[in-house]
């Protein structure tokens, strides 16, 4: 366990050594800040059937920024080690493959979570300034941040898998971007194709991150996405581990 934490600490630190981390942070805060600003100014003086918090988590801005950050934070995980050759000292130290895979996954997850922490401030500031609640209930906050965590875990595990396949960071970024975007838009097929049968539409709805976010950000904690994303994350991490081990036999 100690080795896992040693590895994890290095992973987290290495994010804050690289300029990419700060670029992602700034970009992300900018987009989410603009999102928040527009939602609030749209709702200003207008009667709407949703809260600021719901609007914030369900806007186009939000999803646009959301799918873009994963390739950026996961592309270097393994690809950089392969490229620099640092994988050699790493794997000749007495560490297990799964320790490395999990430390990279959780390192990215910790960075992802730090991206979201400042957004909590938006709601605090909103309440301070307007003296009105930003959300209908505490559960709504919990639900939306839970959804972010679940979806983040899954998309990061996809990024891990893409990164373990190549030593080229750009290739890793493109592969994970395509995979994440395709999965994300799977949930939109139901809107695009009007004439598909209702059972297909319902099935696609289960995979729709947008619909799930709609539910959870209202404060309805639905267990289906929890099971779906947790199990998919585990599956992707198992695949990553397998692919990581296969490097030995491909050499």
């Amino acid at each position: 366990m100690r080795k896992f934490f040693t590895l994890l600490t290095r992973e987290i630190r290495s994010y804050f050594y690289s300029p990419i981390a700060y670029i992602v942070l700034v970009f992300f805060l900018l987009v989410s800040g603009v999102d928040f600003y527009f939602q609030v100014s749209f709702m200003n003086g207008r009667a709407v059937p949703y809260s600021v918090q719901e609007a914030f988590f369900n806007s186009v801005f939000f999803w646009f920024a959301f799918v873009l950050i994963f390739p950026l934070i996961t592309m270097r995980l393994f690809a950089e080690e392969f490229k620099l050759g640092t994988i050699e000292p790493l794997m000749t130290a007495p560490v297990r493959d799964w320790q490395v895979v999990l430390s990279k996954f959780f390192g990215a997850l910790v960075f992802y979570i730090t991206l979201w922490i400042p957004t909590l401030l938006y709601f605090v500031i909103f309440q301070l300034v307007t003296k009105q609640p930003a959300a209908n209930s505490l559960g709504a906050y919990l639900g939306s941040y839970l959804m972010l965590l679940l979806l983040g875990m899954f998309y990061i595990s996809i990024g891990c898998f893409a990164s373990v396949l190549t030593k080229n960071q750009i290739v890793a970024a493109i592969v994970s971007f395509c995979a994440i975007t395709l999965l994300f838009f799977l949930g939109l097929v139901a809107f695009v194709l009007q004439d598909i049968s209702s059972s297909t539409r319902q099935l696609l709805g289960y995979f729709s991150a947008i619909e799930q976010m709609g539910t959870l950000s209202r404060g309805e904690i639905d267990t289906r996405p929890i099971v779906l994303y947790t199990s998919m994350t585990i599956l992707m991490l198992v695949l990553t581990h397998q692919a990581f081990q296969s490097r030995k036999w491909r050499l």
Partner: protein
Amino acid sequence: MIKVENLTKRYAGQTAIDNLNFEVGKGEIMGFLGPNGAGKSTTMRILSSFMPPTSGRASIAGFDIFEKSLQARSHLGYMPENVPLYNDMRVTEYLDYRAALKGVPHRRINERVGDVKELCGLKDVEKKLIGALSKGYRQRVGLADALVHEPDLLILDEPTSGLDPNQIRQVRELIKNLGRQHTILLSTHILPEVEMTCSRIIIINKGKIEACDTPENLLGQMRTATGVVLEAKTGNDNGIEELKKIAGVRDVSLTTEEDWQIFSLRAEAGADVRPEVFRLASQRHWAVRALTQRRATLEDVFVEITHADEV
């Protein structure tokens, strides 16, 4: 300390190492020689558990590298070729990280990292970013990393490549000193280095072990082991014929330099023909300006072994 049995590694379509067998005993400094692409790095990578062999087995400190890989790795300090390092970390920070990763107890990390920085001459650069270090310092960071957990065995892949002569000398001294407490397997291209530091040598060519012996024995076995050079003026005598009559001389060749004749004599292994040559020259009243023995170097051994089929 290292035991290698029938170790074979095949890459797609080509055999990198073929049925290697050797042992390295405790306290030995084993030199691993061979031309580029002979399979040195492959062997070392297999021993460090970085890649598995196609067949055969090997063990380090009694632990099979495949079945007990973690234990084998914790007894091993490995420095890969070209020393890949994290450029975004600082020297001390990197060594702290590596020490923790290799299981050095928490309370001993400071002491161990301090020791290896001292030993490898890294005190001046301990706060620098690794990415900003020169090649020589990177090499030392790699060496410090290999040493930080006090391994019984060090495997160093070309520890002196890319260094300047002063740095090479420093690293060589360091390795010699380390050899007192550690078993070392090192590969290199620089032959005088091996002669000076290693207690035994393996010469590998095209994936096969061509020779495995002490440097002295290898030199002794050489056909060209001893040669004598005589620079003289022989007047009207036919120097070649006269010299060939000396017992133990196998062959004589002649070149001239200004009006001096330079005879190169090849003697039989172990024979020292210099007294006889001198006696002949004084009997014949040849003017002699030099009589020297040319010792075969490891370079001769290396060239003879690795190019035997091409010459």
